[in-house]
């Protein structure tokens, strides 16, 4: 087996959802280290501190108080040091236009959040695996778009 692991960060204001995601990550084949943030402000403080290790993949809840996922995305994409991270946005619902708009603003992945734990695991597994291929096979991350 492979002993490599991936650094993941998750920003979500809902405690149940954070738990839900963390459990799903633990059950994935790819080993991960997960950092959790309660809101966009906490997340950006961490990311903007250059002493901290940047995650390979960041999951952003679209609807957070104080600072929304979209606002975080905008800040991340305009910061040179942060631009390389793969970003997965998730939300419970959104219009086609909103989804396309998040991609245009630089998101790599758009997830419609499933209610079912097994489905969530399957979706996260696909995101993490696809991200892994980009990460390990030198693919062009600008072309990394995935909608689930």
């Amino acid at each position: 087996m492979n002993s490599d692991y991936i650094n993941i960060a998750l920003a979500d204001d809902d405690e149940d959802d954070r738990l839900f995601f963390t459990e799903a990550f633990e059950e994935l084949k790819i080993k991960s280290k997960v950092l959790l943030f309660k809101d966009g402000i906490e997340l950006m403080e961490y990311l903007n501190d250059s002493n901290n290790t940047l995650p390979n993949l960041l999951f952003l809840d679209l609807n957070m108080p104080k600072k929304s996922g979209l606002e975080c995305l905008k800040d991340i994409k305009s910061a040179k040091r942060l631009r390389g991270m793969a970003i997965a946005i998730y939300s419970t619902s959104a219009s086609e236009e909103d989804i396309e708009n998040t991609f245009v603003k630089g998101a790599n992945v758009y997830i419609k959040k499933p209610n079912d734990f097994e489905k969530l695991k399957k979706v996260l597994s696909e995101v993490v695996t696809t991200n892994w291929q980009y990460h390990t096979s030198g693919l062009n991350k600008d072309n990394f778009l995935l909608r689930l």
Partner: protein
Amino acid sequence: MKLLLKFDFTKVCNTVLKQKLEAHQFNYQQTAFGEIELMDKVSEERLKLFHEDINSFGIEVVEDPKKIVIQKIKDVIVDMVFNEKDINVKTSVYLSEQLEENYNYLSNLFSEMTYTSIENFIILQKIEYTKILLTNEDLSLTEIAFKLNYSSVAHLSKQFKNTTGITPSAFQRIIAKRKQIN
């Protein structure tokens, strides 16, 4: 009393290696000096213990040979897709020929090490190449399908949607809009 020693280095190395391999109960064959082939599937833990043990004798495993094979498989696939290699045989036969290994072995190793299958990796690469042709070369999907030997444009379009979750035209639109912003 002083003793003057003369070493047969090859023999010293081979003897140490032989003793160690036997101590770790490996079923092995020595294929060349400094190259061992393990005949059975060996767990990572056992390999790690072996590495640690021989390290103290100044012997080091150069690199995980599995990773070398994986890299070779990826290189052959990328070359095949991106250089539009005209291959008359099935991909499995081609890979097997290029790597001089049984396809089942390659396929299992690939799945074990990369979290995806060779088949999926090939599809991913083809879709990546399609993305580049769509955005940089401005080719139509029909032209790309022909170039990449797809049986029909519908097949490529469906594979694109299945792999990325978005349609080729949506992809083109998103990338074009991103370019406008930057």
